[in-house]
């Protein structure tokens, strides 16, 4: 990939006398050529290889709840007691988030997915990943295409947010970071392995309340 040539002003700064005294004018084309050197393309599996060799760092000052919501479940058994506990937790989450979601709803127009009936269920995706330039939601509901599913950065809450309407059903999804790295939703209650050694998050939309955040 060819580097973008630096502007004259930037190069002027690089070559300013206080940085490089007695700079000859004919050094400028050499500096420009160095700036425009073509980089070799790194192997496609470099990122994946590195990520396979690292493990999450030991968390500091994390609460049990935080740990619980950030640990994806690979399998679970439903018992009446667990069902009641999950129901109670979900009830609390829905109650607590209703104030926040009101705010999001005012700021974020809900867009209907192509082909989705107008009575689709409103869903808000949220994702905590500061320091990246863009996040898209991809999943089986949009055939894993990021077009039109760009999340918006909510500066106040420090979250990426996207409000859409989806039909009732069960979907797999993940977050696409900067158009390159795909990460499952760390807050998803359910995950599922795909055929490529990765995990996708599961969202079940039923009657207006999904495990994600139905409005």
């Amino acid at each position, binding site marked *: *990939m060819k*580097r973008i040539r*630096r502007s004259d002003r*930037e*190069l002027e700064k*690089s070559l300013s006398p206080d*940085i*490089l*005294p007695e*700079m*000859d004018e*004919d*050094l400028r*084309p*050499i*500096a*420009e*050529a*160095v*700036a*425009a*050197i*073509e*980089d*070799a*393309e*790194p*192997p496609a599996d*470099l*990122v994946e*290889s*590195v*990520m396979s*060799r*690292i*493990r*999450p*760092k*030991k*968390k*500091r000052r*994390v609460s049990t709840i935080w740990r619980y919501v*950030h640990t994806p479940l690979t399998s679970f058994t439903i018992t009446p007691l667990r069902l009641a506990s999950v129901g109670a937790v979900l009830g609390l989450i829905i109650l607590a988030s209703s104030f926040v979601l009101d705010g999001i709803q005012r700021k974020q127009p809900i867009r209907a997915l192509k082909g989705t009936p107008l009575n689709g269920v409103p869903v808000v995706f949220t994702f*905590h*990943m*500061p*320091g*990246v330039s863009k996040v898209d939601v991809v999943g089986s509901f949009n055939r894993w295409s990021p077009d039109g599913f760009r999340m918006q950065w909510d500066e106040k809450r420090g979250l990426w947010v996207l409000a859409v309407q989806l039909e009732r059903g069960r979907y797999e999804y993940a977050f696409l*970071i*900067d158009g*390159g*790295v795909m*990460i499952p939703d*760390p807050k998803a209650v359910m995950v599922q392995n795909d055929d490529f050694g990765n995990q996708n998050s599961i969202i079940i939309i039923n009657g207006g309340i999904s495990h994600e955040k139905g409005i």
Partner: protein
Amino acid sequence: MENSEERLISDILAGNADAYGILVERYQRPIFNLMLRMTSNKEDALDLAQDTFVRAYEKLERYKPPARFFPWLYTIGMNLARDFCRKQKCRQTGSVKIFDAREDSDSTIDPGSYVVERLDSKRVEKALEGLPLDYREAVILRFHEDLSMKEIAVSLGISVSGAKMRIHRGLLRLRHILTEGNLK
């Protein structure tokens, strides 16, 4: 960008290992190319680039914001590459063979205008191979990676004045190689 990077690293330190993929994605190109310049071998370059990112991850607690992450990462990469080259046979730098660069050009062109008019990145890239390691990396960090003098000093483990000196002398040597025909 720096502030965002700081937050990203804080997230990684809090246990979000996936977030490290963003940093690897962002800096894999300059680190892989550094290793390629050092080893001239794609397999070795890939191994060293991976080792650099893994080592940086292991030592991430020692990274001190608000300094930029890249110079710190580059220092780790340089140290790994130097260790590797001490043990293995790496390409020698600074041993430019003499030949007449104007052999394949119009002999009526004087050396000065030859550089200005015919200079292209491929020739400069080749000429860079003839520079001593620290000169070459200082010039690349300054003009190709756009680092400040202070960041170059940190990356190469030298003083700021040392960085300025290496860049200046590196450019002068490049000019000498390109104009005097000392290009292999």
